[in-house]
């Protein structure tokens, strides 16, 4: 296990290094922030001073080395726009996005697993066919449209749920969380469901396929031949086996959820990282973009590691060991 973790850490460092280079080049190619940041009325001297202050006068490779040196000390640069450390800006907004993504994942599992289980156990019932047909909608309807429809129905016409913002928040460990207040939860429901829509469908389909496959296994028949109750066969013998693919896919998908919460955050004016990055791209706020992308890279690496470890806990045949 230790050898495995050590190997993964070294790999992770290499991935981060390569990604930082790609990100830096990519952001550089997007456009020149000077045109946007500096007032057109500014004269030549002011202009040059600003360029120098932002460090944009150096050649690209020097800019990269400066960035890398600072990054090693935990400094990912200051935002051109807010004049605050980019990392701080992102970390401030991270709880909002994490909350949304975790909410969506939990919703996907709570809704998706039972429906998928039912559809797998009774594949020919009309209800199961309805579930499967609906899950196709979940895959194919665009997120932003569903978000707008949710707002129209539940916020505008029925007036049940608020449509924008995070609502009341509670501060814990210096971070603001809204899932601990009634108002905050009311604000969280729609965006989380919106973001969960695709994942619910995914979980339903994975679970159903897993159940149908597992039910045919000899060990399920053997479990029945032992005289176990159908509930025990389903929830212990079948369920534990289908959790393996579900955990893998949902876990890996979690990074994607965070990265692509951009759309949902925009629709519901959710003040998370996604909204920050869209705003930053609009004004070409390079340090924030770079810092955001680096955060996402780190997040993916962490999630993959967690998934690998969870996987080994669920499936005894997988033991994490360093190669000899």
């Amino acid at each position: 296990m230790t050898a495995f973790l050590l190997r993964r850490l070294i790999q992770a460092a290499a991935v981060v290094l390569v990604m930082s280079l790609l990100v830096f080049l990519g952001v550089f190619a997007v456009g020149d922030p000077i045109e946007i940041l500096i007032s057109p009325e500014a004269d030549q001297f002011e202009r040059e001073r600003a360029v120098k202050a932002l460090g944009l006068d150096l050649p690209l490779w020097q800019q990269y080395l400066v960035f890398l040196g600072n990054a090693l000390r935990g400094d990912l640069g200051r935002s051109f726009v807010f004049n605050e450390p980019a990392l701080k800006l992102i970390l401030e907004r991270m709880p909002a996005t994490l909350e949304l993504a975790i909410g969506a994942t939990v919703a996907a599992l709570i809704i998706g697993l039972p429906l998928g289980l039912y559809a797998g156990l009774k594949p020919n019932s009309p209800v199961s066919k309805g579930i499967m047909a609906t899950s196709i909608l979940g895959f194919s309807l665009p997120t932003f449209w569903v978000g707008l429809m949710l707002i129209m129905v539940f916020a505008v016409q029925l007036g049940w749920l608020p449509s924008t913002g995070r609502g009341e928040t509670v501060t814990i460990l210096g971070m603001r969380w809204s899932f601990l207040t009634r108002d905050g939860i009311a604000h969280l429901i729609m965006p989380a469901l919106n973001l969960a829509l695709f994942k619910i469908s995914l979980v339903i389909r994975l679970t159903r396929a897993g159940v149908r496959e597992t039910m045919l296994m000899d060990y399920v028949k053997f479990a029945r031949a032992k005289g176990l109750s159908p509930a025990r066969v389903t929830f212990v013998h079948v369920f534990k086996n289908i959790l393996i693919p579900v955990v893998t896919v949902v876990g890996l998908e979690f990074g994607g959820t965070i990265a692509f919460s951009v759309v949902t955050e925009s629709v519901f004016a959710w003040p998370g990282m996604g909204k920050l990055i869209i705003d930053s791209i609009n004004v070409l706020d390079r340090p924030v973009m770079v810092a955001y992308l680096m955060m996402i890279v780190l997040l993916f690496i962490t999630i993959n590691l967690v998934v690998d470890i969870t996987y080994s806990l669920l499936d005894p045949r997988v033991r994490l060991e360093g190669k000899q």
Partner: protein
Amino acid sequence: MSAPTLEVRNLRTHFFTRAGVVKAVDDVSFTVEAGKVMGLVGESGSGKTVTGFSILGLVDAPGRIAGGQILFKGRDLATLPEAEMRGLRGNRIAMIFQDPMMTLNPVLRIDTQMIETVLAHAKVSREEARQRSRDALGQVGIPSPDERLKAYPHQFSGGMRQRVAIAIALLHKPDVIVADEPTTALDVTIQGQILAEAQKLCAQFGTALVWITHDLSVVAGLADDIAVMYAGKVVESGPVTQVLDAPLHPYTLGLIGSVPSRNRRGEPLRQIPGMTPSLLNLPAGCAFRSRCPRAEPGCAEPPPMAEYRPGQHARCIHPHQEAVAA
């Protein structure tokens, strides 16, 4: 005389598929007494396994028992409600499957899979259930059962896994065990050990054993009685020595002839020409007709099961009543 432990009477298990009705088991009868071994023999697809599942009440849709009786100590299992059937399964009637690599759940530890079986039928503490599981493992010859209980199935070899499956089947000292080709997937040496084990345990507990196999040599050494199945029907049944030494049905004779050791060295292996017919469109009359060297026009009528020698029945109108020169 009390009722035999297990009596299958005219069992019919049919599968109602879109392509038509598949008569996987079509009029099968046999009786097993306590402590005796019944060998159910036939090629793949002859309906042996489905017969076994029918006894356990584990036939899945689109299949169902379409007729006949399965009398367990006089109670008809074919009409028993599922809840009562579940009370018998794994308790009074147990089953051992063919492929030991597939019968144990890969993500559950051995102790979980054994204790749950104990607790499903006996009101005992977890600790007591663990004790019984450990004893059962010891009984089937698994060394250091305490440690092995904590292992996962993938940490066992095939033969060991089959021993675990047998131990699970033995947990409640059942009256009937249906063993579906339990040694087919194992090495010959392991096969011998398992057979000896099964024989010993059945004699010890007075268990009626239904041993499903395609391997005549296994049956010869193990079984008291034998029923030969072909295309869903029992074509010949009787005491094992009698059937194997003097088979009546041409199919039984063919099966015996196909066993390599029965052939003389240097002679080509005898084989039964053709292949098993599709159960979806069986020929009318005797299903073996198209492969039978003795077929005659009369075989187009379904032959009745008749007793040609004491205790030895065959479903054939022109049985081999002369002695076999094999």
